């Protein structure tokens, strides 16, 4: 499985959501098939709600973990 890492820490709001939505649209097929996972690093607290919600709306699951002083959101194949 390939991993696409996106470090959006320090960027202006709502960079996290906009950039993640763009990548999901680009890589949607691979994400759904489980060939690709995205790892998003963000310090935007709101993104821990908006990004997983947007990702799940597009048929992909997401896990949020706090790492140090920021958050890591990892996409994964939705379990049916």
């Amino acid at each position, binding site marked *: 499985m390939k991993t696409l890492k996106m470090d959006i820490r320090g960027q202006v709001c*709502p960079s996290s959501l*906009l950039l993640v939505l763009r990548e999901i649209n680009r890589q949607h097929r691979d994400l759904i098939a489980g060939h690709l996972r995205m790892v998003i690093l963000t310090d935007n607290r709101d993104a*821990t709600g908006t990004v997983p919600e947007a990702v799940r709306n597009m048929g992909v699951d997401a896990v949020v973990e706090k790492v140090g002083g920021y958050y890591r959101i990892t996409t994964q194949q939705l379990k049916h």
Partner: protein
Amino acid sequence: MDFSVWIIMSGLLVIGAAAGFLMHRSDFCMAGAFRDVFLFKSYKLIRPLVLLITLSALLFELFRLTGILPSYPFPWFAPPAGVNIFGGMVFGLGMVLAGGCVVGVLYKMGSGNLMAFIAFLGLIAGSALYAEIHIWWRSLAKQTSFSTQAVTIPQWIGVSSIMPVLAFVAIGGFFCWRWQRAGLWVNKNEAEGFIPLWLTATGLAVLGALAVLLCGIPMGVTTSYAKGAALVESWIIPGHLATLPYFTTVPAHLSLPVDGILRSGGAGVHFDIIAIVQVPLILGIIGGAWLSAQLLGEFRIIWKVPFNQVTMVFAGGVIMALGARMSPGCNVWHLWGGFPLLTMQSLLFAVGLLPGAWLGGKVLQRVLITAA
């Protein structure tokens, strides 16, 4: 300094700190509230703003009815003018590009966000820029004044404020109740220490009401950004500063409820009534957000940021400050203070915010997506 002034400033510092703490925990972003309606068709952030305005309207009207409001409507609000809409539009554009409104920038800055600090510098620069066009703008504002001396809608239609305000509260309350029934107050946010948006909105309404009780006017911060601009100019171009009427006049007058002494103030460098009622709030919001971020271990300055975003955020700060001065007043002053009183200036400002935020969303999308 008088003891009473110390009391007021200490109280406002605590109110600001509590507000900053809550805003950081919930990421309570008023810029995002307007932006996301257009950018993502999301109403998640606008709902708590409706709750905040509705609760504030109820509290302010209760204060008026019980006679503890020293002045009604609040001092410094004026009859409406066309510039209120235009100022709101410019402000809306600026706050979206800056990534936060005039207090959003403060709580984000308090949590170590470098972009918010750049927007803050933009706010100072924009205030300095406005001082250069103040005389011309003031005459334009007079020309666009509506032919009424009424400040609020109840005054304009010639009735007591109780029925219009209660009708407004009933409508706002109805929507909040509908959202509650639909489960829309549940926020799926996984940030540590997250406080639900409805709870923060309620807390902010109470804090805003306490600020009114303390100093007789609602919260506001932007004239102190102009003071910051005046301070910088006093260091580098003091001769020019002395020629600018915006910085040399003291148009604002206020009696603090605690001692009843009439004090004056303006955008100049002096320690005056503007500094008394605004600077503690600014410092409090930054400090409260800093404390919240420290307790969560989230205070961190990220120095590596995209240059195009730095430029956009600084420009957003400049534009937002221009809008705040042109209107006159910021989103906090109008939405948290004037709107609940059905002040016409504030309603026009809010109308202007909508196209401004829409345009800001378009530009933001272009900068973040196209240039990424």
